């Protein structure tokens, strides 16, 4: 205070008057709405209503000082810079601007003493991590010894507090249907039901649980839950909905991992850094496709912003999926609730900025060994590569690479076709052997000139990927019947952006040769095409398996990004070194050599394993019981819900860790509990005491998700193809989808070739209409809990939809072909759909209906499919 008075005295009376008469009123009238004393958080961090606020400036730095024209204040009010215009509502008058200019030229004298707003003067408090760590989910696990039946013991304790009892056990038919739909997503066959009913041993239920968990359909069912978390989709969305090549391999990876009970920690490590893990199986790299399942813009005007948005989505999915933390909230400011500073967000951003995507060869090790042997033998026959001679280019042409250095610096290969030995002044994927496949991917380069020229030959492709531009048509192809020709790309739209090249040989009988990649402003190629035919392909004796490629991550150009002030990628603050959250791993983390994904995976399990375990246990619980012990399954932070049964959650989490992160073990603990085996029948007294069933006094009734409902209809109608894995089936296009506009795929079959729904391709802009109608979540963010809505379009779909009517027809056809009378046929239908015989009433209603309607089995089947019992697990 004393100091400011002194400083104020240094201002001449004329200056003070000028400020009071011309500047302060102007600030008050035109700026205080956003930068005044009454706003608790001034826009851009700038407060003009106090001397200290003015001298401190905003998030982007000082606003006055230096020459008038270079000051941020003048730049803003003169509206010369389209990105910085203040006041945003409209330009100040010329007089007002002139006043401001004069004042800044005086040195921005400010006679205020700041007594007006003392509360705003203290510096922003940092995060108190010690205090923050007291939040329940950041605490170490508080476990109790586990005895058989521990799950029920914890639940009973809470029920007793309310004077409640758990419901009676469900009957065996209900139980097997529940278990089968819950664990495998398919109804039990009548034979499976009969087998279970006949098994009189005390181990009958336990054996059933084991059979269900061992079913290959378990992986299909639970992979779909996982895919919701990683916003799995096989296209980029946006305007043209471009396909993501080989995205489906990630889906198969998840199914295989779950069926094989891959330990959860390994499952997570592989997804974060499967391409980097020491001694990883080649398949582990597929898991890293997780990072790239998000939306991608096909031609962003602001490439920087677009990249930042994509990284934001990667961080958001990472945070929610593994940690139940809403990290995305710390993009523009420190997290409002959780101990997550903006610097942590950008530490993760640095890691994701250092991780690019590519296609990698992921053949099984045995095949890769075979390919490698072929490559080595061929390399020996071909002799060592020779450096090429420098050839001169006409003026105005700039070499990106002439491949004269056989070491191929700046390029990274996958597969065996592109190898250092394949470079002889040019890179030739068939030099070793035409049977080998692979890709060669370049480092990124800034596009300066307008044209790219490539001298190339053969049957492969040179893909060009600028910034986010992923149009698959942007690939150069040579005429395989000719010798070297010059091919050209016009990159006018991408000038000023980073781009990279991918040389691709996916032809098991051929290859690609690239001699030079050249930039120029001149559309004409720098040389002539080769009039000679291509060299005769050598005959080859050995065959190798075709290459298997998958969308994976790779570390390239690891670097630290800077904090984007207020989330604006053009407004940079301090550097944020690659690292994990301060909350868990502390403030001083050792610098990492690569992208930091490998270290991220390690730190996640070294420093945050309690939270990681809690989040996953809760997810599994949620899918078995309809809601989690923590209701906000994707948010374990301070704005999320607290657990209804904290001890149960922690005890299960500890058991999960102790079991070597076995997910199937976790399922077994839950499925063998009495709670899971309760009846779902509501009773008025219990409903009144526990209306939301938070204490689990009965088993909750739940509607099947879109995928399970469709799979159920396929199964019941006798159509289901039970094969696992493989490329996706294109979605059927309903008449409404026919009109959806750009990026429309070829229509798939109505019944999806009877494959399970998880194999129907997820196209962002063309989600299968059945899924769309029944609450399939938009693949944009991690979704651990889907909305369950009941809207008329669902009933209309069940009544009048093509698919439902077709499957009802097939079910009727199958039923009519059965031996027996009407009564037996009705009974068979009930066994198939509901795993129980019909009641006498149901018999009577069925018989009467059929008699009165010309024995229309199709109509009857359609009605049964539409019943609530059909679509609900109870």
């Amino acid at each position, binding site marked *: 205070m004393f100091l400011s008075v002194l400083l104020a005295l240094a201002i001449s009376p004329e200056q003070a008057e000028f400020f009071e008469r011309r500047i302060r009123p102007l600030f008050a009238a035109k700026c205080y709405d956003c930068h005044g004393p009454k706003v608790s958080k001034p826009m851009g961090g700038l407060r003009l209503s106090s001397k200290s606020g003015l001298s401190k400036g905003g998030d982007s730095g000082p606003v006055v000082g230096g020459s008038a024209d270079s000051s941020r204040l003048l730049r803003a009010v003169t509206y010369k810079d389209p990105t910085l215009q203040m006041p945003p509502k409209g330009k100040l008058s010329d007089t007002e601007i002139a006043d401001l200019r004069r004042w800044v030229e005086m040195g921005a004298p400010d006679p205020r003493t700041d007594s007006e707003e003392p509360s705003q003067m203290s510096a922003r408090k940092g995060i108190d991590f010690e205090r923050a760590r007291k939040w329940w989910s950041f605490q170490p696990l508080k476990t109790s010894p586990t005895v058989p039946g521990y799950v029920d013991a914890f639940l009973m304790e809470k029920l007793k507090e309310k004077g409640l009892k758990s419901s009676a056990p469900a009957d065996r038919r209900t139980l097997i249907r529940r278990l089968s739909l819950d664990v495998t997503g398919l109804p039990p066959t009548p034979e499976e039901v009969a087998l279970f009913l006949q098994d009189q041993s005390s181990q009958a239920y336990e054996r059933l649980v084991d059979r269900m968990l061992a079913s290959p359909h378990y992986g299909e069912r639970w992979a779909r839950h996982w895919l919701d978390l990683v916003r799995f989709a096989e296209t980029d969305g946006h305007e043209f909905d471009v396909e993501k090549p080989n995205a489906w391999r990630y889906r198969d990876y998840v199914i295989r991992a779950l069926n094989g009970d891959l330990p959860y920690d390994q499952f997570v490590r592989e997804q974060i850094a499967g391409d980097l893990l020491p001694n990883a199986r080649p398949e582990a790299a597929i898991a890293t496709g997780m990072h790239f399942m998000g939306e991608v813009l096909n031609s962003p005007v602001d490439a920087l912003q677009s990249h930042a948005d994509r990284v934001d989505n990667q961080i958001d999915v990472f945070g929610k999926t593994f940690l139940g933390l809403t990290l995305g909230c710390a993009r523009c400011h420190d997290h409002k*609730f959780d101990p997550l500073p903006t610097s942590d967000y950008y530490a993760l951003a640095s890691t994701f900025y250092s991780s690019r995507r590519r296609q990698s060869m992921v053949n099984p090790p045995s095949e890769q060994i075979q390919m490698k042997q072929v490559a080595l033998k061929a390399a020996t026959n071909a002799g060592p590569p020779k450096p090429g001679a420098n050839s001169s280019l006409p003026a105005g042409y700039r070499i990106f690479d002439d491949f004269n250095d056989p070491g191929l610096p700046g390029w990274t290969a996958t597969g065996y076709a592109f190898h250092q030995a394949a470079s002889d002044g040019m890179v030739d994927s068939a030099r070793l052997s035409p049977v080998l496949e692979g890709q060669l991917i370049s480092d990124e380069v800034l596009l300066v000139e307008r044209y790219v020229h490539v001298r190339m030959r053969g049957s492969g492709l040179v893909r060009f990927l600028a910034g986010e531009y992923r149009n698959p048509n942007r690939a150069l192809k040579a005429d395989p019947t000719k010798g070297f020709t010059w091919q050209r790309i016009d990159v006018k739209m991408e000038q000023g952006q980073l781009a990279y090249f991918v040389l691709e040989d996916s032809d098991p009988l051929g290859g690609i040769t690239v001699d030079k990649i050249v930039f120029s402003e001149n559309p004409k190629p720098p040389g002539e095409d080769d009039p000679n035919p291509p060299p005769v392909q050598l005959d080859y004796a050995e065959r190798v398996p075709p290459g298997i490629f998958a969308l994976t991550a790779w570390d390239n150009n690891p670097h630290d990004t800077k904090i984007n002030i207020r989330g604006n990628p053009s407004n940079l603050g301090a550097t944020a070194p690659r690292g994990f959250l301060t909350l868990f791993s502390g403030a001083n983390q050792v610098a990492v050599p690569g992208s930091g994904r490998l270290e991220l995976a390690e730190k996640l399990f070294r420093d945050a394993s309690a939270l990681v375990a809690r989040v996953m246990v809760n997810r599994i619980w949620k899918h078995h019981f309809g809601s989690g012990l923590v209701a906000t399954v994707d948010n374990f932070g301070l704005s999320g819900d607290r657990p209804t049964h904290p001890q149960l959650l922690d005890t299960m989490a500890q058991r999960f860790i102790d079991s070597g992160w076995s997910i199937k073990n976790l399922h077994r603990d839950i499925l063998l509990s009495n709670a899971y085996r309760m009846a779902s029948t509501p009773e008025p007294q219990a409903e009144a005491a526990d209306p939301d069933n938070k204490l689990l006094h009965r088993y909750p009734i739940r509607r099947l998700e879109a995928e399970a409902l469709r799979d159920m209809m396929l199964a019941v109608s006798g159509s289901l193809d039970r094969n696992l894995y493989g490329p996706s089936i294109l979605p059927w296009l309903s008449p409404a989808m026919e009109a959806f506009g750009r990026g429309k795929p070829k229509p798939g079959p109505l019944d999806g070739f009877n494959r399970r729904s998880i194999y129907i391709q997820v196209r962002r802009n063309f989600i299968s209409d059945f899924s769309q109608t029944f609450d399939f979540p938009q693949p944009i963010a991690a979704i651990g809990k889907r909305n369950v809505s009941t809207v*008329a379009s669902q009933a209309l779909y*069940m009544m009048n939809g093509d698919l439902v009517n077709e499957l009802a027809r097939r079910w009727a056809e199958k039923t009519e072909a059965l031996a027996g009378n009407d009564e037996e046929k009705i009974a068979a239908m009930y066994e198939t759909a509901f795993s129980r015989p019909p009641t006498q009433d149901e018999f009577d*209603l069925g018989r009467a209906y059929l008699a009165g309607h010309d024995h229309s089995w199709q109509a009857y089947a359609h009605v049964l499919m539409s019943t609530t019992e059909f679509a609900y697990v109870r």
Partner: protein
Amino acid sequence: MSGKPHTRYVNTRREMLAQCSHGFGGLALAFFGAADAARAASSRALNPLAVQPTHFPPKAKSVIFLYMDGGPSQMDTFDPKPLLDKEHGQPIKMKTPVTQFNDVGTVMKSPWKFKQHGQSGAWVSELFPHMATCVDDLTFIRSMVTDNSEHTLANYMLHTGFSMQGRPSMGAWLTYGIGSVSENLPGYVALNGGLIPPGGIDNVGSGFLPAAYQGMLFRQGANPIANIQRREPSEQFQRDKLDLLGKLNKGVVGRLGATPELDAAINNYELAYRMQSAVPELTDLSKESPATLDLYGINDKSTEVFGRECLLARRLVERGVRFVECLSPAVAGADRWDQHSNIVKGHTDNCQATDKPIAALLKDLKARGLLDETLVLWGGEFGRTPMAQISGGKFGRDHNPFGFTMWMAGAGVKPGITYGSTDEYGYFAVENKVHIHDWHATILHLMGLDHKRLTFRYSGRDMRLTDVHGEVVTAILK
């Protein structure tokens, strides 16, 4: 936070109940006692589309958004710029930002002549002879700005207030905020004229809000929505099936106990059954007079598609539907308002397809006394540049998010005024800028909602249509 009237969570059984009741209003009461019914009727928690109390008295009951897909050119329609005539063919004398195609040419004058119209003297180019007769009912905003110069992102911003896929659209926010009074129709309808905007149906989606709030896309023709047409050979045949379904469901509920979830699912079929007749009744224009059909241009090939959309919009509003969006028409020869080349033909076709129907809608609403309770909005996702783009010798204009024109009409807005302005080129808004966030805030305000209080808890945050932005443009309010 939880004390806020419009903060919602999706985890309670009440919420579950709400989502399980039905898409549409009025019917959620079946499974409550009579004493609860009255309370239930007013609560969104029990029926997602039950009418909700507003934050303050609303000016408008419904919104019709005439969406001009692609970005109409402001300097060729409602914002005349004499400087363009003067500097035609010269390089523009100002710093210009990067544009979508980045091949900007020289300044290009408008190929169309402007005249003042009506008592308000509003400027309209000769492209809109019909709309020109309505200017005294219109409120022009010449200072619109948005964030992106690329269709998809700008469309998401325009429709959802956020330049990325997956947020709820303004129609969804509105029906979430105040519910709907329509019994047999959805609260939010998007009429598809054949052009789905870049960004797809997410432009009318419900994002993280429950599906009950999503825009239902109506196709053209006799069966505007999916699966609306009965497949059974007769109505009786279908009725018999539904009766059997009802009995079987009742039996199961009887044995296993009633839950709201099951009851809601059962009632849903009856609603769907009624929709099968309500929707054809809506789209059947045979009871409209020949004069009305003529007014909307339904007997003329070039105006038929959008004329039908505008007429349907009126019929939807009459039936209590809360938000109607008319998507741009696909008429032979006409594409979006997105002419990077040959804007002369393009804009002429676009105007021909929409001008007469829009004027008809305004006049018809007014004549029926509906304009006082309906807010009509016109505009695209951005405007166009004052400089030319040349392709094949034919001139066009590139995208311009920095300044463009939209108009509002009807309930609560001052008619016959022009608000805000662009610079002399018509490139940047300079006076009274109105960002899309402000536009959204103003629309919600007119419907009786405070955009800062209309929130939904998602991803750990209380989300808003206006994110953390937006100010009501009070200067244009009555």
